[in-house]
């Protein structure tokens, strides 16, 4: 056995980690090789140092405190509170490091669902400022629509192309509100409008308009002014329900 073979075995030799045959070979080599003996002595010295490495002596107080803490913790865990237990069972797995991807995916799914609902479902519900009005789809945009609205103002209510709104019902509602509240129009006026304003079903209707403004004059005698923006930007219906319909059959609506 030469030095090259012996050297890697020396760390194990000094610790008695070699089998009997290898130990004998290394011991034989060390008797004849001064260099390897010096290295072996260094290994032995280092091991001796390591074995002399005593840890600190901890006081009995530390051990007593340790036992007390452990037993307290065990007692606490063996009598868990009911609600935190249920909540932790439900949500604790999600905050574990290994579950962070699942938690992230769940949050993402919740966010996407919420976004979907806010964009598609909730938008359809009328709010105080939204009124669903169906208007007949104009066959041509622009001037033609304007002319239709003009026709409506002029009293051609029988025309199949004009906006068909059941105004009478709405007027009754507003009148009733006035009587009850002495001229104060409730904030949900437009919601009532939304319920009241109906359009005859037809296949080519456009939906979702917006009540731009409902203004209430200070005196009871003044007219209420309702502005409804149709889906066509160029058409806004201004309705003055307090006004008497024109003698020519108009109902107070104006197309602008």
């Amino acid at each position, binding site marked *: 056995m030469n030095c090259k073979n012996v050297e*890697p075995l020396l*760390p*194990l030799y*000094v*610790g008695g*980690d070699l089998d009997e045959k290898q130990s004998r070979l290394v011991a034989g080599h060390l008797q004849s090789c001064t260099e390897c003996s010096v290295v072996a*002595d*260094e*290994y032995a*010295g*280092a*091991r001796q*140092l*390591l*074995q*002399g*490495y*005593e*840890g*600190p*002596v*901890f006081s009995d107080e*530390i*051990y007593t405190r*340790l*036992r007390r*803490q*452990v*037993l307290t*913790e*065990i*007692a606490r865990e*063996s009598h868990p509170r009911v609600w935190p237990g249920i909540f932790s069972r439900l949500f604790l797995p999600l905050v574990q490091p290994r579950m962070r991807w699942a938690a992230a995916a769940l949050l993402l799914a919740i966010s996407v669902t919420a976004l979907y609902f806010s964009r598609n479902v909730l938008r359809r519900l009328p709010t105080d400022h939204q009124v669903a009005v169906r208007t007949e789809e104009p066959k041509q945009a622009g001037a033609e629509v304007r002319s239709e609205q003009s026709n409506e103002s002029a009293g051609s209510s029988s025309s199949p192309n004009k906006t068909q709104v059941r105004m009478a019902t709405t007027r009754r509602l507003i009148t009733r509100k006035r009587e009850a509240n002495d001229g104060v129009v409730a904030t949900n006026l437009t919601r009532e409008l939304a319920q009241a304003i109906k359009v005859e079903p037809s296949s080519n209707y456009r939906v979702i308009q917006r009540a731009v403004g409902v203004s209430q004059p200070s005196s009871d005698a003044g007219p209420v002014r309702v502005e409804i923006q149709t889906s066509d930007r160029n058409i806004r219906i201004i309705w003055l329900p307090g006004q008497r319909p024109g003698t020519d059959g108009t109902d107070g609506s104006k197309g602008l």
Partner: protein
Amino acid sequence: MSPEATIEAHNFGVASDKRLPEIVPTQIPRSLARLIECAAAGDLAAFEEIMKHSEKRVMQMTWRMLGNEADARDAAQEVFLRVYKYLGRFKQDQPFFAWVYQITLNVCRDIAKKRRQYDTQFISLENGGHEAALVVCDDRADAEQTLIRVQERELIMRAIATLPERERAAILLRDLEGLSTEEVAHIMSSTATTVRSQISSARQKIRVYCGRYLKKRGATVE
């Protein structure tokens, strides 16, 4: 827990010597087995007895692995909590202290991961922890011997701190706890060959680290 078990508990061969091959016995003493059974059934007094007989080793091991008292105490607490928690899964035919060491190493690894300042703390906080020991030494030995001992301790401490975690665990269990290579392999869930390789590597590194001091000391002795 019966009084008989309490009395017998003091005799299950866990002496406080530094290196004891019998701390990982192949057969668990009957008294210990009984304590384990009682503790697994929820007997806290029995578990306290188990703690009393293993706390010193656990604390020493956690301190050597983590390098400071605060972490060592936290780790020891966690070790005993896990021991109690999983005591029901412990099989009586396996060595109890090997199992405890296994848990200890896992806890130390977890804490070291959490702290992320493993080696820094090992060196920096260690010095503070030795002041008490220094005073004790001062009473017994002359100043020069004490100084040499402190120097050696610091040197070996720093040498251990340079080791990778698994090598550190292997060398501590083998050279300080006096376990056999097979026992260390069992504790570390590894093979004897791997453990031998880790021990060899660790000894080489420690020798290199302490080489200058050892040469100097050798020259002084000669």
